[in-house]
Every structure is written in structure tokens, then in C-alpha cells.
């Protein structure tokens, strides 16, 4: 589903990503591991062009989204993203946070059709009465959009057990609640893949579990997920692929059992011994 071909990224001459080639299949749950500064977050952020890649291609559903001419907004809607610091919209209530993107996208479609209808109306003035062009029919009304979005958002909130928080502002939520809302906000667009950028790193330890549980249930439903995390246990349990990165390159691409029991590169062995000895 996502083909990354020779992806490079440099900031002011320092090369952070040095040519990454990887293919992600539908249903893959990929965990990216690596020491800090290895470029894992940059790689993840390049995947939906949050950072513009300096070179290379990212083929997502058949379109090269690294191409600057592509309308990235359309493709990002099918690529959810969850941030380390949640980034809920502070000026919107929880339910508005979730409804925002679906409502906006559909209203935009509606406006597009209405605009076309205006043209047709103008054209009709000059057309003969038999040959008048018919107006395009509107697939839904503004109220419909609001209603379905509200419906979907409420369902999503129920799923994470926060339906009573629908009308509060994010500042009143705990970190774990914020991150769960952020995840369902990404889900509201029915994305093909969700990118997680260290989703539990900014959380208090006792809140990590609730977020991981939600991610686990997404994984069970077959959602494609690409996760940058430091939760080794979670990676071992949920992932079906581990990408080990260091210095802007993917050094290992293996199944978790293989990677954790039998790492091939020296660098990975060193990393694992450091990370696992802490636990």
C-alpha cells in the first residue's frame, strides 16, 4: 500500500534520512525502533509529507505523494496521524475535534457541486428550452453532514468510553484521554493507515496502558499502522514487522520474534541490550 523508494531528507546539508526503501502492505503493523536521532520520527513525518522529503518517492495507493504537485490534503485524509503531544484543537470541544475534518471535507464537496450548479444556471439562460442542461443533484444537505458526523463521532467516543466528555474542551482531559481522542480523531476519516509518532512518550506511566489497549484493538481490526515507539513489550506483542533504524537507514526489517531473539546487526544487538536491560 505504501512504497517508499530511496527516500532522503536533509536539513541544511545534514542528511537525516539516507535513502530508505521499504514497502508496507495492507494490514501491516510496523513498529519502528532505533536510538534517538536515528531518524525514525523524521521518516514517519515524511510518510505523510509533514516534512517534505528532499528526494525519493512515496507511492501511496498508487500516487507519488512526495511529488509537490500532488494535492497532499486529499491523501492525508486517508493517512491518519497521532502525535506525541496529542495536538487536539484547543479551541474546539472534544466532539468538534472529531467532527472537524469529516464535516469540512464533505462541506467542501457540497460547495464544489453548488458552484458547478451556478455555472449550469448561467449557461441555461442561453440554452434552448428543450436542450437545457439539468442541475447536478446534491448528494446530501449541510444538516445531513452534521448529523452523520455527529453520529459517527459519538460512536467513536463511545468506543473509548468518553461519551460524557463530548462537550468539554481538551484542556480538561487527562493525557491518556487526550491521546485516545486524538486516535479516534484520526479514525473519523476512515484512514487506510495511521501513523503513530511516539504516542505514549508524553504520558504518565499509568495512562500508557489505556492508549496501548486502544491501539491493540485497532490492530485486531486489521488497521494498517506504522508506529514509532519505545514500548518494547507492545512492539513484541502487537507488531508483525519491526524496522530497526540507525543513522538514517533501515538496518533490519524482520518479524518481532526474529528481531528480539536473533538480531543480525551489531548495532541492533547493542540497542536491544541497552533497552532491555533497563526493564
Amino acid at each position, binding site marked *: 500500500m505504501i512504497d517508499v523508494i530511496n527516500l532522503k531528507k536533509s536539513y541544511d546539508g545534514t542528511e537525516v534520512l539516507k535513502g530508505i526503501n521499504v514497502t508496507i502492505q495492507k494490514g501491516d503493523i510496523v513498529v519502528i525502533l532505533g536510538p534517538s536521532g536515528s531518524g525514525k520520527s523524521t521518516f514517519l513525518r515524511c510518510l505523510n509529507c509533514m516534512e517534505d522529503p528532499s528526494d525519493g518517492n512515496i507511492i501511496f495507493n498508487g500516487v507519488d505523494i512526495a511529488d509537490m504537485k500532488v494535492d497532499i490534503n486529499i491523501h492525508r485524509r486517508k493517512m*491518519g496521524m497521532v*502525535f506525541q503531544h496529542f*495536538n487536539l484543537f484547543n*479551541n474546539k470541544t472534544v466532539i468538534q475535534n472529531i467532527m*472537524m475534518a469529516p464535516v469540512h471535507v464533505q462541506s467542501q464537496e457540497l460547495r464544489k457541486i453548488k458552484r458547478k450548479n451556478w455555472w449550469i444556471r448561467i449557461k441555461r439562460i442561453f440554452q434552448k428550452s428543450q436542450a437545457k442542461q439539468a442541475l447536478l443533484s446534491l448528494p446530501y444537505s449541510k444538516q445531513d453532514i452534521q448529523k452523520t458526523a455527529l453520529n459517527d463521532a459519538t460512536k467513536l467516543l463511545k468506543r473509548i468510553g468518553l461519551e460524557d466528555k463530548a462537550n468539554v*474542551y481538551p484542556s480538561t482531559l487527562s493525557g491518556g484521554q487526550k491521546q485516545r481522542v*486524538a486516535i479516534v480523531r484520526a479514525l473519523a*476519516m476512515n484512514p487506510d493507515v495511521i501513523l503513530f509518532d511516539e504516542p505514549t512518550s508524553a504520558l504518565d506511566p499509568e495512562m500508557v496502558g489505556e492508549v496501548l489497549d486502544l491501539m491493540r484493538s485497532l490492530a485486531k481490526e486489521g488497521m494498517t499502522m506504522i508506529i514509532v515507539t519505545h514500548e518494547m513489550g507492545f512492539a513484541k506483542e502487537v507488531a508483525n514487522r519491526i524496522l530497526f533504524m540507525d543513522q538514517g537507514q533501515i538496518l533490519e526489517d524482520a518479524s518481532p520474534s526474529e528481531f528480539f531473539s536473533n538480531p543480525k546487526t551489531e548495532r541492533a544487538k547493542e540497542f536491544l541490550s541497552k533497552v532491555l536491560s533497563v526493564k
Partner: protein
Amino acid sequence: MGNISQKITRFLEIFWEQNGYVKVLEGLQNTILIAITGLIIGIIIGTLIATARVIPRYKLAPKILNGFCGFYVALFRGTPIVVQLLVFYYVLLPILGLKLTGVQVSMLVFGLNSGAYISEIMRSGLQSVDHGQLEAGRAVGLSFGTSMRKIVIPQAVKNILPTLGNEFISLIKETSVVSFVGAADLYVAFNYIGSSSYEFMVPYLVMALIYIVIVLIITLLIKLLERSLKKSDRRN
């Protein structure tokens, strides 16, 4: 003291009996009209400039836009408002062949002028909003413009509201120079009363009082507005 009460009587006489109050009301109306229109134009221009200046500058078009906005701000912050009024009224209007009244020119010039100042206020407001907010908007597929309009700018405005109120207050006070282009504001009204009675002490004191009252009212309104916008900051 008899002198002062005499002056007050003289002032009141002109104020009530020789249509002084009509002039004052007219002046008050013009002052407030110029300040409010100026503020609205200023906020629109300021927001546009500030947004233009925070667009990531990889490509040529945003670079040119940024340069132009920088020039605009430098121009309007670099010259006194009186000079701008005079240049617009006596230089630009005749060249363009436009006929505008002093009040209209004042509204325009104060709008353009405060736009330059508000753009800087707004820019600091936009920068005070966590970059993650814009990123989150972009990540769910909203365009740069939509993310700014629906997410970043509302939060920025909330942050800069006290400063914006300040700008409005100084705008109200700065309008006292519009008589340079023949707009009848509060100053003109009280000057008229003063010169009719050959006595300036009381009129000018009353004028000062009116300005203070206007400013106090605005301060109160801003406080109320701030409180109602604080909703999303409330913590349990």
C-alpha cells in the same frame, strides 16, 4: 473661584444653546466611526499580512509576498500618522482623481496604519500558538488556509486580545489628528466651542473627560470579551 464658575456657565451656554452639543455628538460619532472602521480594516489587513508572513517560504511566491508585506509594514510604521493623512488627502487623492471626504480618508488611513501594527501583534499571536496545532490540522487533511482560519487564528486572537484592545485604545486617541484633513472629530467640536466663547479651559477639560470615559468603556468591553473567550482554557 468665581472666575471658574463663570467659565463653566459660558461653556454650558454655548453647549446647550448654540448647538454646541450637536457638534460634540457629531464629533463623537466621527471619532468612534473612524476608530472602529480603522480597527476593522486594520484587523483584516493585519491578519492577512501576518498569515502571509508565517507561510513556509520554500517557493518564490511566498518570498515575494513576504517582501511586499515587510515593505508595507515598514512604510506605515515608519511615517507619522499625520504625514500619512496629509499625503493621502493632498497627494494621492488628486493624483487618482478620487473625491473622498476627510472622514472617509481618515477611516482608510487609520485602517491601513493600524493594519501594519496589528500585523505584528497578530504575528506574535500566531507564533504563540503551538506549532502542533497547525500540524494536526494539516494531518487530518485540512489545507494551510483552513487550518489557519479554523484553528490557529482563533487561538491567536484569544492570546492577543489584551494587546489588540490596547491598539484600539490608542487608535481612538490618535484620531484626534484627523482635523488635519478636515474631518470634524471631538477636537474640532470642542475647539469650536472654545473659540466661540474665547475660553478653552473648560471645553478641553471636558474633551479629555470624554476620551477617558470612552477608553474606560472599551476596557470594560474587552474584559468581558476576554472572559467569554476564556471558556476553552478552563481547567477542572
